[in-house]
């Protein structure tokens, strides 16, 4: 187990290096830069642009910039934001709690919905028809559109919930925070639950068709017990893998949802940094996201390894 773990971790290091190089080249290849927005102001003259370019170190060669960035990054110096001059690490860390709150809540909600719907859909044909329709709709809804529709319905028309933000000004108690959380979390939860429930339904169906369930039925085991104890445990393995892989993407913040709901998490920081070509913030964000993907992939492997005795024998 430990050898398996260290081997995978060692593989991740060169992978992350390659990722960092690719990401660095790609974001610098995109047209515009941290100074692009200054060009729109007629009072900012070419001399000013040149002066700022030198001051920001953007006049060096791309290779030199990459080496300088990488050297500092591995030593824990993530540099300063080009946009507001504050340390990148501070800017990221102050956004993490909001993202954890949103992503955590929506993941738990999505898991609950997916488990209930997936199991029922596999077991009850009538329910399956309804669930399929709803799930397809859930998968197809563009997140930004669905988010705006929920705002119109629950904030504007009904007036039940605040349309966006993380808290009301001066009203940051638990109830207020929860009220703000409902809509963005619902959007994310629905999007993920729709996909996950379809996945679980599929693997439940497969498990229910396996010979052991027939044997169990013949042995007089109740249908409820067959579904929940026997089929579900088998079906959970692939499900866990999918959920963890998806979670690795969610860990980097829900970029679209956060900006639609003005949610102050890392996702909206990313959107903002992208528009401003804030290279240092973008690099730190993308590297953190890459590390999260690598780690959660590793967790997924370990989870399957731990849950399924067959993979242990194969290894």
């Amino acid at each position, binding site marked *: 187990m430990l050898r398996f773990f260290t081997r995978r971790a060692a593989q991740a290091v060169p992978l992350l290096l390659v990722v960092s190089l690719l990401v660095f080249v790609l974001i610098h290849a*995109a*047209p*515009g830069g941290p100074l*692009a*927005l*200054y*060009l*729109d*102001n*007629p009072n*900012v*003259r*070419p*001399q*000013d642009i040149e002066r*700022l370019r030198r*001051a920001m170190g953007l006049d060096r060669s791309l290779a030199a910039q990459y080496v300088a960035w990488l050297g500092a990054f591995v030593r824990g110096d993530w540099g300063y934001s080009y*946009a*507001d*001059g*504050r340390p990148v690490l501070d800017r990221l860390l*102050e*956004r993490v709690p*909001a993202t954890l709150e949103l992503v955590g809540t929506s993941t*738990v*909600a999505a898991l*609950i919905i997916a*488990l*209930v719907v997936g199991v029922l859909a596999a077991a009850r044909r009538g329910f399956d028809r309804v669930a399929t329709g709803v799930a397809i709709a859930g998968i197809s809804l563009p997140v930004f559109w669905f988010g*705006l529709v929920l*705002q119109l319905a629950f*904030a*504007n028309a009904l*007036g*039940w*919930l*605040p*349309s*966006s*933000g*993380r*808290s*009301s*000004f001066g*009203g940051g*108690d*638990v*109830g*207020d925070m*929860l*009220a703000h959380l*409902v809509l963005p979390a619902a959007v994310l939860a629905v999007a993920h639950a729709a996909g996950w429930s379809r996945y679980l339904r599929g693997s439940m169906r497969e498990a229910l068709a396996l010979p052991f369930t027939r044997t169990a039925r013949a042995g007089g085991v109740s249908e409820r017990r067959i579904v929940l104890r026997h089929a579900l445990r088998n079906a959970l393995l692939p499900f866990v893998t999918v959920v963890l892989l998806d979670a690795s993407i969610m860990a980097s913040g829900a970029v679209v949802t956060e900006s639609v709901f*003005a949610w*102050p*998490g890392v996702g*909206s920081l990313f959107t*903002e940094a992208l*528009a*401003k*070509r804030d290279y240092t913030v973008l690099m730190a964000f993308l590297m953190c996201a890459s590390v999260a993907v690598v780690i959660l992939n590793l967790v997924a492997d370990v989870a399957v390894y731990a849950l399924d005795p067959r993979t242990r024998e194969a290894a």
Partner: protein
Amino acid sequence: MTFRIAGRVLFAAMLGALACARSSGRGPSNDLLIVGYDREPDTMNRYATHILEDIQTGVIEGLVTTDEKMNVVPVLASEVPTQANGGVKMRADGGMDVIWKLRPGVKWHDGHSHTSADVKFTVDAINKGDWKPESTDGFDRIESVETPDSLTAVVHYKEVYAPYEMQFVRGTLPKHLLEGRDIDKAADYNRNPLGTGPYHVAEWKTGEYILLEKAKDYWRGPEYPKINRILFRFISNTTTRINQLKAGEVHMVALVPWDKVRELKSTPAIRLNQVLGNGYEHVTLNEKRFPPFADVRVRRALAHAIDRQLIVNTILDSLVTTVNGPIQPLSWAYEPNVAKYDYDPAKAKALLDDAGWKMGATGVRAKDGTPLSFTIITQAGFAIRENVAQAIQKQFKDVGVDAKVKLIDGTSISTVWFSGDFDAMLHWWQSGADPEITLFFAADRTPPAGRNINYLKDDALTKLLYASDRTVDQSARRDLLRRAQMRVADLVPELILYNTSKIDAVPATLRHFTGNPTNAGPFWNVHEWEFPTAGR
């Protein structure tokens, strides 16, 4: 079993949330005004920011500002220096001196007096260049600043500089706080600047809001500002921002996009305040990249081919007015009597025929085998522009001109035009109150030296423009700029469409809100804003 418990917890949480939700919608009052703002500032330092400075305006005051009619009005200066009041003196060596008299009794929020030493420090700090002010425009023409007394700053310019009035529109830097420091790293100042204005920054919650709170001992008197706190909430998504406004979660949105105005008209709590803007939407024609634009007949033909009134009436809901020149009607230098190009497709066709662009079988004109075909770039995600570009494309097609439309994201497009790598571009310029247009049209001001991205080279115009920059006397300068505007209209270096009017959505009961055509922004007189106290 676990699921059931989790389900109950979630259900209870949602009920709790719903119960609390109603309390969030509070109306605007003299205690609190909530503004839905489209972006978070990078810094509160007015000299370092490159975006509109509405939030900073309440904290840091300029020596002057510009009002809703674009008049320059004194704030921390006791009067605007002019030749007539002896504030501006021409020197025999070709330079000029501007004498700023500061308003007595003005104090920084920490109790220190605001003095001419702060003016001198500001100039020296910017010209020292060891930090990153956004623009050094004008400052680099200053030789030195003298401070004969604590309320007089004499600014010695190396040369005559006509836009001197606006030199300190961004205010001054407090010497006693910033002297000897690296201003880029002075986070205390950049996040919570020491100002003289009606408000100070009470809280900046990153990613969420900035709260301004009434400053103590404001120099205009204890009755100002009338509103105790102003909260700027950052809501970058336009639809979300408008939804929040309609739901009453925010009370005001500055600069409502034109395509959102219609849906706000029926919101009774909201008043839409419209002023002319100091900017104009136009199609830049890049003569260097697409040589057929170098022929003035082609440019005039394209101007005649566009039905501007139709575009304004339909796509823009008549919220803007067509204009014919780069200097806008609110400016003292505006000249209305210039050549105008009315919608006249027959004339457009005749001009193109005359220029040798003959109609081909495909419906596209050509000359010597080259089709009259080019690409108009414009900003993606700006719905109005996307529609206007398509309308122009159709109207060009009617006279045999093939224009393709290419959408480019807002960050990339600045780099594209700066490099001159485009045929034509639909965009606007937003200017400060001074009517200088040299950097847009002088022959030697093509990038990187300026913003003449038409790549127009006209000696007569260039001479007029530089002469106007070196003329301080307003009537003489007006005459030079009048001739420059007529020359621009004759040459049609760009296809000018309409004035970019500015529409702000404010609470219906808010008093003394006027809006502002320039980058001074609608918050320029925020200290006066007030809600009626009785009968609400």
